[in-house]
């Protein structure tokens, strides 16, 4: 597959935590001014990470034409387990079902971000291939990429904006870890895959 997109992307924000802090839910409530209601654990995690990433990017609002892509290999596993049990007992609960639908975290996230745009849940074994796909399809406002799981708990996000004055020291990325390393500041699509460059913060 030969990726073709002449844009260079600058990583303008990333989630700042290493491991999620124990009090992430309290911090999310403080950030929002209230506890999110009935959106489920996975959507809360996604929201926490996305807001942290946007804060790091110093963006108060997500531009309209951003492409938002989220990967969650296990999805809303807690709610799925609850719904399976409720169904065995013939007590299906509407909010549990909604929370079990991983796709439902997109409108929850969009609503909390007060944003309407191109968002999707896309999964693949190789996280780098998802980043490549998103970069290939992103427009002028760039992309917001998230990898979110309930167990082990993670919510890692990157905000990438189009860069008009890119550096020249690009090298091929050998791994996804290199692509998301704090030392990496720029992405560019080469014929063989993603190329990365370091740069000034």
């Amino acid at each position, binding site marked *: 597959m030969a990726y073709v997109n002449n844009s260079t992307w600058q990583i303008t924000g990333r989630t700042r935590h290493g491991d999620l802090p124990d009090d992430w839910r309290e911090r999310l409530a403080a950030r929002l001014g209230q506890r999110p209601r009935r959106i489920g654990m996975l959507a809360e995690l996604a929201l926490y990470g996305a807001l942290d990433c946007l804060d790091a990017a110093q963006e108060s609002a997500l531009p309209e034409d951003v492409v938002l892509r989220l990967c969650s290999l296990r999805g809303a596993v807690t709610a799925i387990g609850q719904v399976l049990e409720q169904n*065995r007992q*013939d007590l299906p*609960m509407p909010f549990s079902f909604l929370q079990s639908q*991983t796709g*439902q975290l997109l*409108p929850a996230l969009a609503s909390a971000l007060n944003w309407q745009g191109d968002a999707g*849940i896309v999964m693949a074994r190789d996280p780098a291939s998802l980043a490549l*796909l998103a970069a290939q399809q992103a427009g002028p406002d760039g992309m917001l990429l998230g990898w979110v799981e309930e167990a082990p708990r993670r919510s890692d996000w990157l905000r990438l904006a189009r860069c008009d004055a890119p550096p020249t020291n690009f090298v091929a990325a050998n791994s996804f870890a290199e692509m998301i390393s704090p030392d990496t500041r720029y992405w560019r699509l080469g014929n063989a895959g993603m190329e990365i460059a370091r740069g000034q913060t």
Partner: protein
Amino acid sequence: MRPVYLRGRSLISALGENLPQALTTLAAGGVAPQRVLLPGGTDWPCYTIDHPEQDWRKRAQQLLCSAAEESGLSSTRHAPLFIASSSLGIGAIEIDGDCSGDSLEFSDAVAAWLNWEGPVYVVSSACTSSLQALLMAYRLIGSGAVDDAVVLGIELPNRFSISGFAAMQLLTHKQPEPLGADRDGITLGEAVAVLRLSGRPARWRVCGGSNIVDGRDPTGAIPQTVARMCVQALADSGLKPADIGLIKLQAAGSPMNDANELSGMAQVFDTMPPLVTFKAATGHTLGASGAAEIALLTACLETGIWPQPDYPPDRELSHALAQSKPPAPRYVLADILGFGGGYAAVILEDTAAR
């Protein structure tokens, strides 16, 4: 951006085990939904695929391999494969009682069944999944990154979705009546559909599309966002509203959503093009619906076979469904609206109508 075409398609649904059979069934008036019994003894209508295999995985494998063969996938096994589904393998999980695996276990199995050698992506963004997948595949081919890509829409039997939609009070106890006077809810359906896209010319060209997630009203479609979806799809395709000769609606039989969808369309189309929906024929096949309905739509337009609603239309709505195939529409807009706030549209050109 280079042109992208629909070079192959297939559909297995309640209408039959392939597209020709679906057309024959549709021409004969369609089928009634089956009743699916839930653990507590309640049952709900559902448009299920008639297939003798009882084992969930063996049945899934047989259906997928059959759909792959019908669409001619053997020549494109190195291409990117976009698997689009709302429920993925939840039917097997219900039977096994084991949800310790991840969402990709099902797609790994699908790739193995199809001997797939190219990259595999799973799009699981609820009802708009396969239209999103189609747009991703379209942009990948259009950019020149690949020559071919495949969208595989899959919605297989499970009680998880039926009980969930029933709990949300979105299902009807009878057959769905999209845009009908007595519509009172949707009916779910099962489908396996393949869309094989390519940079090589074919009759149907993908012109562009749009995908919007808007979470401002989780209870129903927002007319302004339906309008925005259409405007963006038209702009992406380089077209004007007057160019559209037919709209394939979401219209699933929901009292509010059907009306809101029409209201949004009316904001864009001064003269409303003819309208069609397939939800009364196949049910709402959730994440597979975009691919399933495009396969059926293009086949109907090629043959002239047309769904005939057998219920009274809602005369309070501003527009009704077309009773027959419109004469040679060149550009067709197809949309899917997802509960919670998904809006996706694709525009196709019938190059034979130029």
